[in-house]
C-alpha cells in the first residue's frame, strides 16, 4: 500500500468530467511527478488529491486512511501541504511572517522548524524581514515552499514549481526538492519541464486527457521513445 494514493479518480469542476479513472500513488520519501501535454488534467489531478476538486468516483488515501470527504484545511491538519502555482505567498507580509502563517495551525514552538527552513533556503534568512512581494520569482518560490514546510507535512504537493523561473534557479529548486524528499517527506509534483522533472523522479505519471497513459520510473519514461516523441522533443 503506497503512502499517498489517489485511486481511480473521476470528476471535474462542475460541468464535464476532466479526470477519467486517473490513479496516482507515491511512496514515503519518494518523488512522484505528473507530466503531460497542456490540458491533460495534471493540476486537476493534484487538486483532486488535495480536495480542492470534488470527485464523484474514486478515493484518496493517506497512510491507509480514507480522506476523500475531508476539506483541504482538514487535509492540511492531517499532514498534507500544497504549494499553488500562482499567488503562493502573502506579498505585503515579510518572509518571516509568511513562514509564521504557514505554521498557523501549529500551537507549539515553531522556531526550530523555521531554523530548518532557513538552513535549507539560506537566502530566505538574509531576507527574512523583507516583504515577500519584493523578492524575485525564484526567491518567492522558495518562500512558498518554505511556507508549506512549516507545518512539518508528511506530503508536499507542488503545482508547477518551476513555472516562469530561470534555468539556474530551476536547478536550485529541484536540488532543494530532493533535499526535502531525503528527510522522509513524500513529494508529489506537477511539472511542465518534463525532462528535468523526470530526471529527479522516482515515479513518473504521464497523463493525457485526464487518463493515465504511461506509468513507470522516471528513468524508464525518459528513455521511452513514445514519451520522448510526444513531450520531450525526441
Amino acid at each position: 500500500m503506497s503512502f499517498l494514493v489517489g485511486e481511480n479518480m473521476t470528476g471535474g469542476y462542475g460541468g464535464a468530467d476532466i479526470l477519467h479513472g486517473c490513479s496516482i500513488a507515491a511512496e514515503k520519501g519518494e518523488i512522484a511527478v505528473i507530466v503531460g501535454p497542456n490540458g491533460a488534467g495534471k493540476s486537476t489531478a493534484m487538486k483532486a488529491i488535495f480536495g480542492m476538486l470534488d470527485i464523484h468516483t474514486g478515493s484518496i488515501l493517506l497512510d491507509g486512511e480514507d480522506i476523500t470527504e475531508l476539506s483541504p484545511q482538514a487535509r492540511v491538519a492531517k499532514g498534507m501541504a500544497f504549494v499553488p502555482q500562482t499567488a503562493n505567498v502573502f506579498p505585503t507580509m515579510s518572509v518571516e511572517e509568511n513562514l509564521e502563517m504557514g505554521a498557523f495551525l501549529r500551537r507549539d514552538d515553531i522556531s526550530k522548524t523555521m531554523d530548518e527552513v532557513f538552513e535549507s533556503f539560506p537566502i530566505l534568512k538574509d531576507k527574512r524581514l523583507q516583504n515577500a512581494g519584493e523578492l524575485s520569482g525564484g526567491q518567492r518560490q522558495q518562500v512558498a515552499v518554505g511556507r508549506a514546510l512549516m507545518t512539518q507535512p508528511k506530503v508536499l504537493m507542488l503545482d508547477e514549481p518551476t513555472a516562469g523561473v530561470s534555468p539556474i534557479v530551476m536547478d536550485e529548486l529541484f536540488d532543494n526538492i530532493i533535499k526535502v524528499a531525503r528527510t522522509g517527506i513524500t513529494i508529489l509534483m506537477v511539472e511542465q519541464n518534463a525532462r528535468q522533472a523526470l530526471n529527479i523522479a522516482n515515479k513518473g505519471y504521464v497523463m493525457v486527457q485526464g487518463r493515465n497513459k504511461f506509468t513507470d520510473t522516471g528513468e524508464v519514461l525518459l528513455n521511452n521513445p513514445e514519451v520522448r516523441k510526444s513531450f520531450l522533443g525526441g
Partner: protein
Amino acid sequence: MEDLLNAFFLMSNFVFVPAIAYGSQLALGAVGVTLVYGILRFSNFAHGDTMAFGTMFVILFTWLFQSYGINLGPLPTALLALPFGIIITIVFLLGSDKFVYRFYRAKKAVPVTYLIASVGIMFVLNGIVRFIIGPNDQRFADGERFIIKAKTMKQFLGTAEGVSIKVSQGLTVVTAIIVVMVLFWFLNKTRTGKSMRAFSDNEDLALLSGINPDKVVAVTWILVAILATIAGTLYGLDKSFKPFTYFMLLLPIFASAIVGGLGNPLGAIAGGFVIAFSEIMITYPYKKFVAYIVPGDWKPEGLVQLLATDYKFAVSFIILVLVLLFRPTGIFAGKSV
C-alpha cells in the same frame, strides 16, 4: 518679528490646530473604512451612520450619567459612556453581518452587491438614529472647555493673536494616537492580527493555511465598531452631534481612505490629515495672515479666500476625483478601487 509671530499664532489657531483635530477624527473613520475594504473587500457606505449610531448611544449614556451626577471633572463625561456605546455598536455590526452580509458571502456575491447592501444598512441606521434621538443638533460635551485660551495667551505674551486649544481637540489627538498605536500593535504583533493581514493579502492562501474566515470577519467588525464609535464621539465632542452631518462625513472619510491607499491603515491616517488640511487651508480667508506678512501698502483688499467655507466638501470631492483619475492606488499603493 512680532508680526511673524502673530501670523504664526493666527495660522495655528484657525488652521493648524483645527486641522490636526479634524484630521485625527477623519483618520480614525478612514481606518475603519479601509479595514473593511482590505479584509472584507467592499466599500462600506454605512460607516458614517455607524459613527452616528455609536455616538448616539454614547450621548444617551452620557445624559444618564449626568442625571445621576456622575462626571469626570475637567474631562467630558462622554469618556465614561464610551465603552457602553462601543459594546452596543459591536452587537449591531455583528448582527448586521449575521443577517445581511453572511447571506451574500454564502452566495459568493460580487463586491458591488455588498456595497448596495451596506447602503441599505445605512438607511436602516439613519432611521434608527433619527427615531431615537431626533434629527437635531445635540451637544453633550461637559467639563473644561479649553486647555489654552487665546485671550489668556494674548494677555500673557502681549501679542495681538493667540492660540486656543480646546479640551476636545487635545483629547482627539491623544485618543487618536493611543488608538492607532494599539491597532498597529494588534495587527503586527498578535497572531489574530497577522492572520487578518494574511486574509486581506491572499484569501485563498489564508484559507489553505487554516485561518478561520468567520473569526477574521467577526474581529474586523469589532474593530470597525470600536473605531467608528470613538471617531464619532470625538467629532461630536469637538463640533456637535447631528445625524445629517455624520452622513455627510462619509465623503471626506472615503476620500481619506482612497488618498492613502485602500486597505492600508497607515495610508488612511495620512489621508485623513491630507484631506483635513486641504479642506481647511483651501477655504481659509488669508487676508489677516497676509496682512501680517507683507509690508504696509501691499495689504490685500479682499478676503484672499480660495473657496468659500460652504465648499469644504467640494475640496474633498475634487481631491477624491483627482486621486481616482491619476493615482487610484493612493499614496501608499493600496488596492485599486
